[in-house]
């Protein structure tokens, strides 16, 4: 399955509480993703919490956009990526 980097911006900042409700939010995203065969691998969030860079496995870019709409997450740009490992040649 292809891997994608999804860039998002959050004008009001991204805040996920570090408690049960935050867990519920994240698990809700995971469940809704699975309906389209989309797997959220991990995300990197900028210090100011205005941007995020998320790694996804998904069958197509359309699946990413569809789940983003269901999860009410913005999408700025989707790029298909591959892993480059610095220690690959050792």
């Amino acid at each position, binding site marked *: 399955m292809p891997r994608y980097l999804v860039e998002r911006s959050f004008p009001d900042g991204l805040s996920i509480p570090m408690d049960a409700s935050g867990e519920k939010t994240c698990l809700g995203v995971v469940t809704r993703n699975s309906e389209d065969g989309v797997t959220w691998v991990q995300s990197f969030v900028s210090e100011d919490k205005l941007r995020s860079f998320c790694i996804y496995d998904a069958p197509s870019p359309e699946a990413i956009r569809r789940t983003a709409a269901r999860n*009410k997450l*913005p999408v700025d*740009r989707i790029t298909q990526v591959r892993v480059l490992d610095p220690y690959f040649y050792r």
Partner: protein
Amino acid sequence: MAVATELLERDSQLAELARLLESARGGEGRIALVSGEAGIGKTALLTRFTRLHAREARLFWGACDPLSTPRPLAPLLDIAWTQSGQLAGRLTAGASRETIFQTLFEELRSPKPAAIVVIEDLHWADEATLDLVKFLGRRAQRTTALLVLSWRDESIGADHPLRTSIGELPREVLARIPLRGLSPAAVESLGARTQRNTEGLHAATNGNPFFVTEVLASEAPGVPPTVRDAVLARAARLRPLARELCELASVVPSRVELSLLEAAAGTTFGALDELLGSGIVSAQDGSLAFRHELARRAIEDALPPLRSRELHSRVLLALRARGEEPEPEQLARLVHHAAGAGDSTSVLRLAPAAAEHASRLGAHREAEAHLSLALRHAAELPPRRRAELLEARACECYLIDRMQDGMESCSAARALWSRIGDRIREGNCLCWLSRMAWYSARTEDARRYCDLAVEALETSAPGPELAMAWVTRAALHCSAANAASAIAFAEKALELARALRNAEIEAHALNMLGMARVQLADERGWAVLEESLRLSLEHGLQDAAGRAHANLGMLAVEERRYELAAKALDEGIAYATGRDLGTRRICLYGWRARLMAETGRWAEAVEDAAHIVDNPGCSPLFRLTALTPLGLTRARRGDPGAREALDEALELARQSGELERIVPATAAKAELLWLSGDEAGAAAEASALIERARQARRPSYVGDLAVWIWRGGGQPPPPEECARPVALLLQGDWRGAAAEFKRLGCPYQAALACAESDDPDAIRSALEALDELEARPAAARLRRRLAELGVRAIPRGRRAARREHPFDLTAREQEVLEALSLGLSNGEIATRLFVSPKTVDHHVSAILGKLDVSSRGAAVAKARENRLLSPAPRETSSK
């Protein structure tokens, strides 16, 4: 499937199901999807659930068949059996599928008392049952029923038809209830009850309840490596007679009536009590069933081949002894055992009848399977009979979009007819071959077959076959942009069809005539196309109606008459869906995807395209029709995969050799190159095809290519050869072009036209439109252009996330809401938004639901209250 013994760790699932049943009772039907591996306890869970609610809800329970080719509508037969209502009567009276489905729906419709409808083991479902699921699913909200669907995860691969059916169910009523294995603690508690050491049991079984209990019951030392070994170990302890009876029962899928078992077993039947006592099987309602289908399969699969044949022929004999004429719904069962017994004579007698029954109920996949089976046993048949079977199979293959297989059968049939010397049947086969070759994007072959068909048929007296061959030739001329020749053959076919009083061929011939006239820019063509559609609908001619919708929609998209196109395509899709015309429906989705892509509705475009692209078995022609708008939409949104989709589309289009496919794919590829900054590449791509387009004299084709030659800095053809908006653009009138694109309903192209100006304000407003459309690459080009013009304050573009709607309305629903606030009727809204009034009706009910109000007026009031409406009524009809 399993008979319930224990139910551990399923409380949350029971609570979820109870909650869903509650909302169903309140008049909002729900669908629960219960999935998990074999033996995980799906049946056990549902049995417990239905027992718990037996007093407050009516129960409808049906299961799909594990027969090699399932009986059509097997679960409905179960349901009818247990219900004394109209359903059973309609089924035995041989009512049409629509009537049968409708009868069940009426039984569940609000305000009838609440009901639980269980359809089990959908991984084995026949095609007609999957259609029933879609039928009920689409109407779920209007019922008081909880529809529970269960299947085995591991049995549905990526291309299993169940996936598509589930994907088409309305999301808002769905709840997924996946079942997982038991925890180590639960496994331990089960072991404790049998006083067994459970060490390693959880790890070996992954907590699968059936596997666990089977191991515990086998009393074998240690844990067997697979569930199959556990079952066989348990059966090995039976004494010879009971074992023989067990083996006999194992060749009958799902369950076997005791009377049948007795007839087939003879004296061995005396071991029934011992077999029941072993716990491997249980008896219920006069039938005997294995504790789980897994157990039955384990025993059946371990039978040596000759033994298996012998047991099947004993069951077949017993079934036959029940009466001389088998009931139609028993045919599939008889075929299963006849094939298992290797009894060719019986297969040849039963399978074609089973195929006919399945086909009549719309289970075309099953019909094809029965015919294929018959053909495997047909070596000894006389050639005429074999040719008929081959033709019947080719026809089923065509209906389920398996053109390759269809062509193989049809070629074999043609060879037989030729040997027999029946030129008319041979010509008829050739005509079918031509059509299937065309759908496979093999235009050259299609032409060759068509020529041979006409040649074969012109030697006999003119009949319907010849008229149809002429229609086929006209269609090929149309696709080759050779409209003048198409008209000649369409007129010949029309005259013959009218002389023969054959409305079907008349409708097809009119369709070709209309199409060719429109291609020659003869406005009268549109009325002829409408006439063909009217005639097809009036006479209930499904194939002709499908073709009429498709060709009208396609031409209207090409000529940018989006309102007419949307109407034809929406109605065509509804028509084909209601009648299970898979091939037609898929073709219509492809053209609607293009309509959506050209009118800036990206999400709808990719959704329509996905119906085709996600279906790996689809014919190349349909795939190509969908790949072009998919790739184009990806290019316009700046998503990855645009080049891959368009390159594949171009390759298939070139293979088909047809301008109507190559032009859109080429224009899309040129646009992708232009968006990525390769302007010379864009011009070169479009220039390579422009002479062919000019020769065809289709202004829409010439215009679609000319615009990229011009933008890429190449030498475009004279403006007067192009469709109007492009002609204006080429003459330097960007303002006129933008207005024209806007009027036609193409906001994206309108914005690109504005971008040609040197006026920063015009570019800025184009940029705004592109940002609104989320057309990132084009917007980026415009930002660069503003910078070149020395503009400092370049709008940064909206920072997404604005999408969140307080009441969860989609962009489309918001548009409809705005229109409602202007007091427009559904018809007026439909015209504005280029959709059918039915679609508007859909949106309106969704809006009422989301705003939680019961009338349009109340919706508008609530929208005002919550400031959901734009400050001033908007001018534009599409965003």
